[in-house]
């Protein structure tokens, strides 16, 4: 089956990988513990950030530019996948049954509500646009698997770019208002963060669901 050369190569790979693991392990253990990192700086600036959840504060205030670019990366991925022009056969949908239909009827609104809750709670506790977007993606995938997901191409496109558009619009508005890109005015930062997050949630869910579908719907057809 395997030639001696292949076996020798495999041994070399195993040794190299183990050596890499040992090196990384030593490096990790060697990192001085007890460092505060940026925790203290973030904690000090937290009252000015408009939210009380430090992770949301970092994502949408202190390092909001990163998040803006990340939404751009998401959109780029969708464009790239659509550009491949895959022609996928119609995916099998789950067999229609009273049980599945009833479950969906209960679960889809519930999941949508949970997504809204996660979006809202992100200001004070773990949650936010990404978590809400992930749950909404679950809604989209469930709908897709049951063949009830129907969106026209233009609506889909607008939903996919809504997050980036809103993010850039707010960034430019802040630039004109306070002189700093994404530097929110004192006192209203929480509102702007919620505005951006709401649009971002819609876009994240739309893009991830569209990536699951894998191809762009035709101009006037229903979404496949």
């Amino acid at each position, binding site marked *: 089956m395997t030639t001696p050369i292949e076996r020798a190569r495999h041994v070399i790979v*195993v040794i190299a990988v183990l050596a890499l693991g040992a090196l990384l392990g030593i490096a*990790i253990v060697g990192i001085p513990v*007890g460092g505060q*990192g940026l925790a203290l700086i973030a904690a000090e600036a937290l009252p000015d950030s408009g939210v009380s959840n430090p*992770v949301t504060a970092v994502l949408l205030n202190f*390092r909001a530019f990163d998040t803006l670019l*990340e939404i751009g990366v998401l959109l780029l991925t969708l464009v790239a996948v659509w550009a491949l022009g895959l022609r996928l056969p119609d995916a099998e949908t789950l067999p229609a049954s009273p049980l599945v239909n009833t479950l969906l009827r209960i679960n889809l609104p519930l999941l949508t509500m949970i997504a809204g809750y996660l979006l809202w709670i992100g200001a004070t506790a773990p949650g936010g646009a990404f978590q809400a977007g992930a749950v909404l993606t679950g809604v989209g995938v469930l709908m897709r698997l049951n063949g009830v997901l129907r969106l026209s191409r233009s609506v889909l496109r607008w939903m996919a770019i809504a997050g980036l558009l809103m993010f850039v619009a707010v960034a430019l508005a802040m630039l004109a208002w306070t002189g700093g890109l994404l530097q929110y005015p004192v006192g209203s930062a929480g509102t702007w963060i919620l505005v951006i997050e709401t649009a971002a949630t819609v876009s994240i869910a739309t893009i991830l669901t569209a990536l699951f579908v894998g191809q762009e719907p035709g101009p006037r057809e229903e979404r496949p």
Partner: protein
Amino acid sequence: MSPASFYALIGVGLFVIGFYALLVRRDDLTRILSINVMGSGVFMVLIAAADGVGATVDPVPHAMVLTGIVVAVSATAFALALSLARERAQ
């Protein structure tokens, strides 16, 4: 050994397992999966690095991981689509 460095070492282990599979496996699907396993290892190291003294947790690595997960998912989707397109072309 503190719990944080334990988790960081597990993260290194995941990274190494993924890297090994990336090197020795030939098919696209396994390679895409192994890159994901490597990514999970990196996320775990970052989360472990966020552990501070006492109750202070560094939110910056948490935000990076949150961002990273979404980017990793979309990059995986693109990789799968590319793989499918290549398979179709052959």
